[in-house]
């Protein structure tokens, strides 16, 4: 109700957050990279540094 839904005029810049939230493929990229780096890659790096027992 409060928010305008009409297309913005040429001079009006669409706010950054709205452009982010309206871009499914950018969101997909962020949503895959974040866990791939912080959980998987970082985790694999730590595990691969464990010395092999002999």
């Amino acid at each position, binding site marked *: *109700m*409060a*928010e305008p*839904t*009409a*297309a913005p005029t040429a001079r009006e810049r669409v706010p950054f*957050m*709205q452009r*982010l*939230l*309206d871009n*499914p*493929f950018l*969101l*997909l990229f*962020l*949503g*895959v990279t*974040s*866990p*791939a780096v*912080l*959980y*998987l890659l*970082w*985790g*694999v790096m*730590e*595990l691969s540094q*464990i010395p092999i027992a002999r």
Partner: protein
Amino acid sequence: MATSAAQAGMIGALAARFRSCPVTGLQIDLAAERLIKANAIAAVVFLAIGGVFGLLVALTRWPAVHLLSSDMFYLVLTAHGLDVLLLWIIFFEIAVLYFASAILLNSRLAAPRLGWVAFALMLIGGLLTNVAVLQGDSSVMFTSYVPMQASPNFYLGLILFAVGALIGCCIFLGTLVIAKDEQTYEGSIPLVTFGALTACIIAFFTLASGAVILIPTWLWSLGYISHIDTVMYKLVWWGMGHSSQQINVSAHVAIWYLIAAVTVGAKPLSEKVSRGAFLMYILFLQLASAHHMLVEPGLSSEWKVFNTSYAMYLAVLGSMIHGMTVPGAIEAAQRKNGYVNGAFEWLRKAPWNNPAFAGMFLSLVLFGFLGGISGVVLGTEQINIMMHNTLYVPGHFHATVVTGTTLAFMAVTYLVLPLIFQREVAFPKLARIQPYLFAIGAGGISLFMMGAGTLGVSRRHWDITFSDATLAFDYPAAAFLMLGLNGLFAILATVGGALYVIIAVWTILFGRRVTAENALAALGPMPPRLQVHTAVAEYGSAGTWHLPGTYILISVFFVSFVLYYFVNWKYLSELWPMG
């Protein structure tokens, strides 16, 4: 001349592909509708099978009954996890993705033929894995930790299933692109579709992790790879195993918004805030996978604490926002519907006899209070150690994935039956009590498993009396009581679940057809002065923050949360007395 004839032909062909929804006026793509039906039916069938397995497991863990032999127990436990957690939930989610894209965006579905390929892959994969488990040489639980080895078809089935689900996710994204190109909606996609997009994004990471780990494991079971590192397996496997739970959370939150919109006309309090909360999920929710590795050596505390604390709290913040804005949106809408007296008239006079509404609200409350609070406790590195691998863990996730996700999916079924299957819900009186029965049963098993876990009872354990063990061990009598109560509530949950399956199947086969006249009534009781019928497919906020009832509910939640959290730290301090 030739072109206009071709155009006329095309228009004719298009008209044949769509029907108009008598409630919302949306154009419904018949190909999407057929796929939604097929996926939803497959989901319900696997819920029925998996639910029976769940009952058998619970009856075995009830020491006085101790139903199955140890071999059968682990076989049935594997089948239970597989059929309910993977097959029921993900088939239903694919149906939700098609619904939230093609139907809500008023668009045609991208590549419906491919949708059938996806469905076939998922079905064949699901059956293959089930057969492998039932043959008895794959009782490795659904986590299939190496070096335990299942038969190759167990892994192959899972891989086929995952590929099918991934195709479904691509079709969802493709439909978003088509709808935007063909301008079937204005402005931004509706919030429910955004929630589904969140689920779809998390699914990509989930399925990719699954492929990375299951394909080598399959080759290992065939003998082409000699060794798979156990910790590495666990790390990558939980990238799939935990993230898939976050698909569920995103999907069921989207469904809460959907049901609230349809049954009481609720609009989100603020589109920005709710979308921001979903963004938190996209960025951070999957990192919480690390809570499964909290007692694993070889991973640093930095990695553990970053992923399960800092990052996870941002995602929990997202859940808390939804936990507040969903009841808030309902309150705002109900006040518009005329229930303005006191703090709680809006809640008292909500359509509690509409199974869709009742199921949604119970799902919201139980997910928050039981699942959410216990989840934060388990996700905290220090206090996790008290409950790690006890029955507290299944207690926690039955609160999230059963009273949360499963109950929300059941609730939305009561809208899907009239809207998509175009049938009036059969046995309306039974349907009215079904969500309550299931909620009490499933809430009970969650609580009593948590209770037994707090007393130290292990999960995945056939015999807590240790009858033929060389070293005797006695659990406190209260633990036996907890498992007995768990068995009783399991029976109740099974009755509630069976009612759901019977009502759904009967409705699909024999339900009265929905027509333009009775379409609205078929959605179940609603507030008599309901204002908005199309809130679900539109962008737009409620435009009010006058929500006294919601603020009171939130305060109750926070007080319970804080108290319980600190009680657990106190337990921890007593576990290792100092000095």
